[in-house]
């Protein structure tokens, strides 16, 4: 079948779009309460000159209004639709009274256009405009967000879709962009302040005596194991730092009650471009009743793989194809990893239709594997044994545990999804659709240890916060290296390297999935091969915003710069 012919349906969808839907306000038009799907031109910023204005706004969800920092007055920010092969100029005007910035997440561009104050450029001062200009050298689903302060938590994020210059290998009749995020009426400085005062502050699903006596599904842990966790001063229910205790989970800026609705005609192939633009929330995504065929991860095409659910870490994107055949509504469920709440939206043939919203599943509990014990006998272990620490790790106040045997967890579906009774995506299911470009074997390994202390809410690489004055991680231009991430903490960390794609070593040599962000599970060891082909300085960090803010951040330096090669 010719994909161009398939686009007839798209044109129909566009016609529906032109009729428009009445709601406006703070949502960009494409994220209004109902969307027929893209291709209506009004809601979207296109072209070679794109103007973005960062300013204060009010944002209302669940009947309550709070303060937001937005782009062009909408939350999420406008969809930027680019064309591969063109040069784009993104003019970012700062109407705040403090500095701002925009980082183009997943974009391959010159370092000075990457938008990280203090690394790629000085930042955008109040009442000034900075123009990011670069050729678009890729296609797929990406996003953009502030890299200044904690503005990202306040609404400063939006999607990017880049149409390919070649025919898209993925055929679809209609598409919807799905931006998942977390919203709090607390100021983000309040969030981090509470966590510094009490590490488990937002966890309202702790183990209790009553739970143990009644033996609910969340309380299966036996007393000796509870005692073992207690002996380590580790909480096996510490799944998410910030939870539904303060968050409302948003889909395209809509809370569960506002119920964003995307339309389809039964039988159509619908492409969902799912972006986790949260500050702190890893989601489990599913649509009960519809299998999800994953066709792209982090904007890069993968061999299609059909699943029923996937975990999407902060800053990851997945494109999936769904083909609802029936004339009924389906619920999109984005459940927070700790199951304290969910984001909800609807796919329906007509506005106003809804489907049942599943109740929250039991809160998962950390296991020995999450502790980095691998298959080891845990008798007499000491999770804070400095002699077990690799020499490059500074085991101090900020390191509460050292994993003795971190294991490859690319075959695991993510915390809490081992036994949900249906197919869940793992990194091992992902294979690049096209062969990996650089077939050179990596010449050296660079280890990065993910470390933390929940009690003081300290997070770091190699036991050192960025604020302590650490050296950059250095690569020679075009060198091929393997980066091994070892997670000594009890939390998942989505690690993002700016300005590059890398290949996740998952067993499919030659067809490793190509990503910009990888979620490293607790007690996990994840390797990626990197071609350091972008000269300059780049941010490298945990994409949980408050982990980054607490110190889990490095600069990656790639030299020589263009022009100063020998």
């Amino acid at each position, binding site marked *: 079948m010719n994909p161009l012919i398939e686009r007839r349906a798209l044109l129909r969808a566009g016609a529906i779009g032109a009729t428009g839907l009445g709601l406006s306000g703070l949502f960009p038009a494409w994220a209004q309460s109902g969307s027929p799907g893209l291709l209506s031109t009004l809601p979207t910023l296109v072209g070679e000159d794109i103007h973005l204005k960062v300013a204060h706004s009010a944002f209302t969800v669940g009947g309550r209004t709070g303060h937001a920092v937005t782009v062009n007055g909408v939350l999420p920010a406008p969809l930027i639709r680019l064309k591969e092969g063109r040069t784009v100029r993104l003019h970012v005007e700062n109407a705040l009274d403090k500095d701002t910035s925009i980082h183009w997440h997943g974009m391959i561009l010159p370092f000075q256009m990457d938008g990280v104050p203090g690394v790629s450029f000085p930042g955008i001062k109040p009442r000034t405009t900075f123009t990011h200009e670069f050729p678009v050298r890729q296609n797929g689903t990406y996003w953009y967000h502030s890299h200044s302060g904690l503005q990202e938590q306040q609404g400063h994020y939006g999607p990017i879709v880049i149409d390919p210059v070649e025919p898209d290998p993925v*055929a679809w009749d209609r598409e919807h962009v799905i931006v998942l995020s977390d919203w709090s009426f607390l100021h983000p400085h309040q969030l981090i302040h509470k966590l510094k005062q009490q590490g488990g502050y937002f966890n309202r699903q702790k183990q209790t005596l009553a739970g143990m006596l009644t033996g609910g599904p969340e309380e299966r842990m036996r007393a000796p194991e509870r005692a073992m966790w*207690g002996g380590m001063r580790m909480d096996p229910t510490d799944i998410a730092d910030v939870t539904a205790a303060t968050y409302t989970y948003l889909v395209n800026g809509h809370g569960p009650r506002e119920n964003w609705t995307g339309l389809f005609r039964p039988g159509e192939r619908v492409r969902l471009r799912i972006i986790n633009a949260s500050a702190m929330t890893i989601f489990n995504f599913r649509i009960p009743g519809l299998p999800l065929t994953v066709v792209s991860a982090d904007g890069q*095409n993968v061999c299609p793989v059909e699943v029923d659910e996937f975990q999407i870490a902060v800053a990851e994107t997945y494109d999936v194809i769904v083909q609802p055949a029936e004339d009924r509504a389906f619920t999109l469920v984005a459940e927070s990893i700790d199951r304290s709440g969910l984001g909800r939206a609807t796919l329906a043939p007509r506005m106003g239709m809804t489907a049942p919203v599943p109740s929250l599943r039991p809160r998962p509990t950390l296991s020995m594997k999450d502790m980095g014990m691998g298959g080891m006998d845990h008798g007499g272990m000491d999770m804070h044994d400095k002699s077990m620490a690799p020499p490059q790790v500074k085991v101090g106040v900020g390191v509460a545990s050292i994993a003795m045997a971190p294991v490859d967890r690319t075959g695991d579906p993510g915390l809490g999804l081992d036994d949900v009774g249906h197919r869940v995506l793992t990194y091992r299911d992902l294979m690049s659709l096209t062969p990996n470009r650089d077939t050179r074997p990596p010449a050296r390994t660079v280890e990065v240890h993910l470390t933390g202390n929940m009690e*003081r809410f300290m997070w770091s690489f190699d036991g050192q916060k960025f604020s302590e004055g650490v050296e950059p991680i250095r690569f020679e231009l075009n060198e091929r290296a393997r980066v*091994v991430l070892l997670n000594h903490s009890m939390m998942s960390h989505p690690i993002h390297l700016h300005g590059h794609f890398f290949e996740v070593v998952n067993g499919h040599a030659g067809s490793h999935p190509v990503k910009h962000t990888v979620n490293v599970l607790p007690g996990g060891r994840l390797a990626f091969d990197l071609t350091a082909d972008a000269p300059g300085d780049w941010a490298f960090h945990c994409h949980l915003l408050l982990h980054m803010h607490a110190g889990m951040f490095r600069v990656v330096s790639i030299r020589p710069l263009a022009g100063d090669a020998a």
Partner: protein
Amino acid sequence: MKKLLVLLFATAAAPALAQHAGHHMPEPPPPVEAPADPHAGHDMADMPDMADMPAPASHAGHQPEISDPPVAGPSEAALGGPRNAADTLFDVEDMARARAGLRKEHGAITAWKLLVDRAEARVRDGRDGYAWDAQAWVGGDIDRLWVKTEGEASFGERPEAAEAQLLWSHALDPWFNLQAGVRYDIRPNPERAHLVIGVQGLAPYWFEVDGALFLSDKGELSARFEAEYDQRITQRLILQPRVEFDLAAQNVPERGIGSGLSKTEAGLRLRYEIVPEFAPYVGVEYGRAFGDTAGFARAAGERVGGWSLVAGVRTWF
């Protein structure tokens, strides 16, 4: 499913890729021939040294994963060039300011907390009274300024005990802080100033502990140890056992303190966290003086020990 996959992918042929797909699919392979997408991944057009990379033909077939190469530092070339790439393009002073901000924003957080652990009325045999125990800190992850105050009194009378401590706190490990500073006792009479050195933190099995040695301006040495534990009954209902031991190295008759174990307190408080920051509680407390301390109390016509019913509020900001 297979049908869907056929539909998903267009028909252009790319033999190497098709072979690739046939050999690598984790699921049964789709009977499709997908087009090579030259734009997936890095566009390496501007990397001449990559042009003669091995062709993707080697990609077909099962390949073993390359095992990890040795851990090694960066090459000489990686160490060259300007220290900060952006300094070559932007105002150097602007960049220096931005870098200072970057560093501060990624780990240098100053926080504070005010905890009123106990603010309670005590109903007991004889004169009812009240007691308080509060502390506050401000600082970074390692070094903090710490203030503590505690005391007790009978209603309508001057406090039987009232003290304040001003401490510098330095983190020793992920859970414990070394604390040193001064303590001033307003009561009992006569007033005393002390030097303080102690350790406060979270012991294994989630016990909050605080132990300190005190050397007074009269050369008297004493010590205090406290421990408490939060047993969560439900998410909001918490039972807190608490013990305190006071010890002295010598008799201080004018203050009613005898050497050895001078005093203990043991309490059990049940609190309800309306919000984590605000929790009213009820409980019982048993306090008793020992040895010469008890003797001094008897001589002064005071109680040696006894039970109290307590009701109060635990709160923090």
